[in-house]
């Protein structure tokens, strides 16, 4: 029976959000809040693991009270328990402090075998938190997961990256980071969608997590954002002339130049 923790974050849907052209900041009112896409793949990984090996999946989210909507979505997908880590003192925490808070909260939940996170969030795209969380928890951190099995207290993981394939065996507990390439997220069942919004979840505040206000939020965060810029991407048109062979060669050169073809 595995105890599996999955981290899930509520983010503004940046694909639909508008940005302040002066500051480059997201206009949060312009976008709906959604579950971070990579985190849904993390939930799927956790649920598959539970379904294969037995156990319980606990979803944990750090954020303001409205992040409970994302936990309801996790319930609809099939997790067993949900925890909201929320305190005004946590507001403005950078990725390092977020990792610290999540590690302390997970530490209070008791024994666990596997922690699963999304690889990165679409609001900041730092991809820091899973690495920092693994450091705080002292766990091996595995990415690029293609397949996974649990055998004798170990995770046997197939990894695929670029043109390479790797099969590794890691002692539990372990931290796994999922991306959209890891799996295909299930659609929740209507029965679960109907009932998920009324389910209870645990709330952990700073008093439960431990520590003091000066460790958290803006005060405790070493990261300083100096500036933000919005990049405008424009498309160009280019014609390759010559014989068919020359055109193919020209195309290959350009693809290599832009690192689209590497070999």
């Amino acid at each position, binding site marked *: 029976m595995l105890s599996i923790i999955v981290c899930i974050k509520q983010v503004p849907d940046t694909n639909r959000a508008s940005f302040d052209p002066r500051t480059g900041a997201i206009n949060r009112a312009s976008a709906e809040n959604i579950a971070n896409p990579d985190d849904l793949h993390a939930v799927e990984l956790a649920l598959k693991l539970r379904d294969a090996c037995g156990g319980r999946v606990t979803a944990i989210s750090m954020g303001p009270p409205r992040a409970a909507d994302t936990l309801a979505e996790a319930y609809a997908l099939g997790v067993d328990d949900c925890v909201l880590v929320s305190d005004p003192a946590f507001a403005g925490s950078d990725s390092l402090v977020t990792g610290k808070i999540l590690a302390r909260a997970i530490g209070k939940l008791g024994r666990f075998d596997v922690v699963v996170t999304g690889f990165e969030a679409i609001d900041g795209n730092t991809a820091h938190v899973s690495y920092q969380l693994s450091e705080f928890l002292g766990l091996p951190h595995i990415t690029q997961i293609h397949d996974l099995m649990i055998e004798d207290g170990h995770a046997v993981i197939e990894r695929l990256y670029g043109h390479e394939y790797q099969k590794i065996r890691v002692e539990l507990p372990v931290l796994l980071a999922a991306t959209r390439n890891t799996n295909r997220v299930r*659609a929740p*069942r209507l029965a679960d969608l109907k009932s998920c919004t009324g389910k209870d979840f645990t709330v952990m505040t700073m008093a439960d997590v431990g520590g003091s206000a000066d460790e958290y939020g803006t005060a405790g965060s070493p990261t300083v954002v100096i500036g933000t810029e919005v990049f405008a991407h424009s498309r160009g048109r280019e014609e390759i002339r010559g014989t068919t062979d020359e055109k193919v060669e020209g195309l290959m050169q350009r693809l290599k130049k832009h690192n689209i073809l590497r070999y």
Partner: protein
Amino acid sequence: MATKFYSEKNLKFVLNEVHRIGELFKHERFAEYSAESTQLILDTAKGIANGMMFPVFAEMDKKPPEYTGTTIRVHPAVRPFVEKMADGGWINAVMPYDLGGQQMPLTLFNACMFIFAAANYSMSVYPGLTTGALSLIYLFATKELQDIYAPSMVAGKWQGTMALTEPEAGSSLSDVRTTAFPTDKGYYLIKGQKTFISAGEHDAAENIVHLMLARIKGAPAGVKGISLFIVPRHRPGADGKLEFNDVNCTGCYHKMGYRGSPITQLAMGESDDCRGFLLGEANRGLSYMFHMMNEARINVGLGAAAIASAAYYASLEYSRERLQGRIITEKDPAKPQIPIIEHADVRRMLLKQRAIVEGSLSLVVYAGKLVDLISVAEGEEKTRLEMVLEILTPIVKTYPSEMGIVSTSQAIQCLGGYGYSDEFPVEQYMRDARIHPIHEGTTGIQGMDLLGRKVTMKNGAAVKALLGEMNATIAAAKTREGLAPYADELEKSLALWQAVMGAAVQYALKGQIDKFLADASIFLELTGILVIAWQWLLQGIAAQDAAKESSAYGADFLQGKLLTMEYFFKYELPAVYGLEKILGASGAMTVAVKPVHFED
């Protein structure tokens, strides 16, 4: 390339502000639903539509079903989609809890079906057909038959169909010839042919379960001799294994649109071994079939509105990006060209589409809410709601279907030559839309249903019930600044409608039924425009109310709503005066025209 096929914001507006779906959740039947779960369900439908349906929308058209001689090979994306729908509980979502369903309000279910149909209409029909067949099985089949067929249909393994039409019996179902020969073994032997059967055979399902109309040998002629049977392609044998039931697929039509779903020809009993299992009582098949016909016809209107929605957003996206010409007062050719949406005539075409799409959607959602309210109402209120639904059903089916063709044509017009090519999706939308005035009862049949049955039903009770609803909206709008002129205009048009109806009924009173029904389709067209004007007035009221609060919809959206309402009243509603004139002047002259007059 087009990426948007419906507006989430508009769908929420219609559900929450115009038709107030939340009122349904106060009833015990729907108490397990909430605003939050509604949102999650809509989001889930969006995810399925974006992930599994829209990406293969064009491909399913370019690689249509292929008849192999025994079965029909459909696009490989169909099977995983149906499995996903089954796994999620969508196939029996609206059925009661005690039958294993989710008792979902049809209002919400139809909103989700709108999303699916806008993403990929052909794909959306596979589970929808099973749902329709399943509802008849639950209503009329014995417990034994339910236990045999329902579980595999709910699981998406077996496809359900409606097998009504025959080569010589389409609109005229009283001429059904497929025959059921009684046996003493608990089943009938079926012999005959069916045609135009949607998903009547395909390789994405393990079995096909036809809900088939047939005439028991010796039954009375006409509609009173038609019975309803379960006729599976494969029947469960004594050992539980499936054995062939002598239902042969003899062909698959090549259609102009809606090409991702196979429309089949079937031959039953070529080896005298096709078994059919009677549902309910003998000779009551057509009345059983009509239990689900209202909802089937609402579905057709829904599908047409959804396709028109997708075409509208494709043309809107193009109109915002395509640079062509300059504003009419700009004479300097050195000035840069402007997006075509800056041209008034293009905006008119976009407004026309929006008026049709959002007016139709509002009507479809309202029809779903009527079904839900009927399921929880009692006594006189239930009867009143049933009357409103009865008279609206031919309009819900026809207005979106007929105007969906006009709307998708306008989408093509916005794209000009590109719209006429298959480089852009709008030509496919127009082809996909064309089936809707035909299937589930043609426009001609709907016109006769409206004027011949619904108008005269229970001494005009349905007309009175509808007028009651429309007049309540008019009264509410008259007290509002900015809406009163539209309320007056609708009131005036309603008086005209009643006069037209009165004149038509005079033919009926004189026993001239042929003249009474000769122009029924035109009467239906006129009624449809009035009903959509009413839906726009409802949306205008809702937009004004939403604008008073700090609304998540945004000022531009709400102002756009009011402007589209204004467009409808100024550009579309006046057509009723022309139609009234036609109906008054025609004297049903088509009755006197003989086939010989079409000589050369």
